[in-house]
């Protein structure tokens, strides 16, 4: 075997993307991820539900924000992971990128659903309506349908390589929706309020509320990573089983 020094950067990257290596690495990472996720979510939930102030306008209803905002962020982050992996899968044909894209979809869809539902529950008492067709809400609903369409495409085509390629194209086309979601509240006037955290001039949210929100966001992100690793491991094992089965019937 050649020494590591003779490998190019690209080859080293490919070794890292090797499914067997991923299985070994994720096996060691997962317990750590689970513990950190549990700690962050426990601390975040306590801070946001019990140890943060009510809002001067919304009162206690503001607490929905601590679930809603991280969910919405992760919904978009999940899509970027999916689209990014899809691009890598299409260009470099790495099986692991393909697996990552496929595994990210249901998690992202779940966060999108959570964002839509919590937003609706907040909208009823605050705005006076469960739902409006403004640019932000509509583009978020489109994101949800993109996730569902992506998953449906995977389920329709039986052969993984072809299914992966078709789904990757859909994921990339849909990625145009992500900046539209983010800028929808800037480009058009909407019922949904503009961004409070990522805005020019710094966050428009008091520190006593921003801290619980950021801890929740970090917890949600680690939760996403944990689920992604778990789902990717499952998918790798599922593909191994499939190959073994095909080999047996072929004999």
């Amino acid at each position, binding site marked *: 075997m050649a020494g590591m020094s003779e490998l190019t950067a690209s080859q080293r990257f490919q070794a890292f993307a090797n499914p067997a290596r991923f299985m070994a690495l994720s096996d060691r990472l997962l317990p750590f991820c689970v513990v950190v996720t549990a700690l962050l979510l426990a601390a975040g939930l306590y801070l946001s539900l019990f140890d943060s102030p*009510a809002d*001067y306008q919304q009162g206690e209803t503001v607490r929905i924000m601590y679930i809603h905002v991280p969910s919405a962020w992760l919904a978009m982050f999940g899509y970027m992971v999916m689209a990014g992996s899809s691009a890598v899968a299409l260009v470099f044909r790495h099986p692991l990128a393909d697996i990552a894209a496929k595994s990210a979809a249901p998690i992202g869809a779940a966060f999108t659903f959570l964002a839509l539902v919590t937003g609706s529950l907040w909208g009823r008492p605050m705005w*006076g309506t469960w739902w409006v067709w403004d640019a932000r809400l509509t583009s978020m609903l489109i994101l949800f349908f993109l996730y569902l369409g992506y998953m449906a495409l995977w389920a329709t085509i039986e052969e993984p390589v072809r299914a992966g390629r078709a789904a990757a194209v859909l994921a990339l086309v849909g*990625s*145009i929706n992500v900046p539209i979601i983010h800028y929808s509240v800037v480009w058009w006037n909407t019922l949904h309020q503009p961004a409070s955290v990522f805005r020019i001039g710094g966050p428009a*949210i008091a520190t006593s509320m921003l801290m619980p929100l950021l801890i929740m966001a970090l917890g949600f992100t680690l939760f996403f990573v944990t689920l992604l690793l778990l789902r990717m491991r499952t998918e790798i094992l599922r593909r191994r089983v499939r190959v073994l089965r095909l080999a047996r019937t072929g004999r």
Partner: protein
Amino acid sequence: MTRKQRRAGFIALGLGIIGIAIGLVLYAMRDNIVFFYSPTEVVEKGIGPGTRFRLGGLVEKGSVEHTGAATIKFVVTDLMKSVTVSYTGIVPDLFREGQGVVAEGAIGPDGIFVADSVLAKHDEKYMPPEVAKALKKSGRWEEGQMNQDEGKGTAQ
């Protein structure tokens, strides 16, 4: 050019073209994508009586008056132009003077906008009541309000 570079190029080109196409569609449809018109836009576009649309802006301070059992009258302003609104029904929790509001309905023959639904618009500010009180007390509240209003004026 390797195969990988060519594939990456195709993806970039494809996304670019689709992005431009969607951008043009959204630009063409901008009047329909906006959720509401500000009083200034209502005047500029010359929206006359009988046309249904959504009107958005701030509820002018001191303009809310109860004219009937469940009927209220208030002025929606964008600090340049304003429109008087009449509404019968229950207003949401966040409906307050000085706060954002979106009313749906049409302008009547008397020039008053008759709304059949009123939604409250929340701004992006989150703070505890004590902080809001302290800001108002120290006189720095208006600065924040003004910045926000400036933003409203420029964002179309």
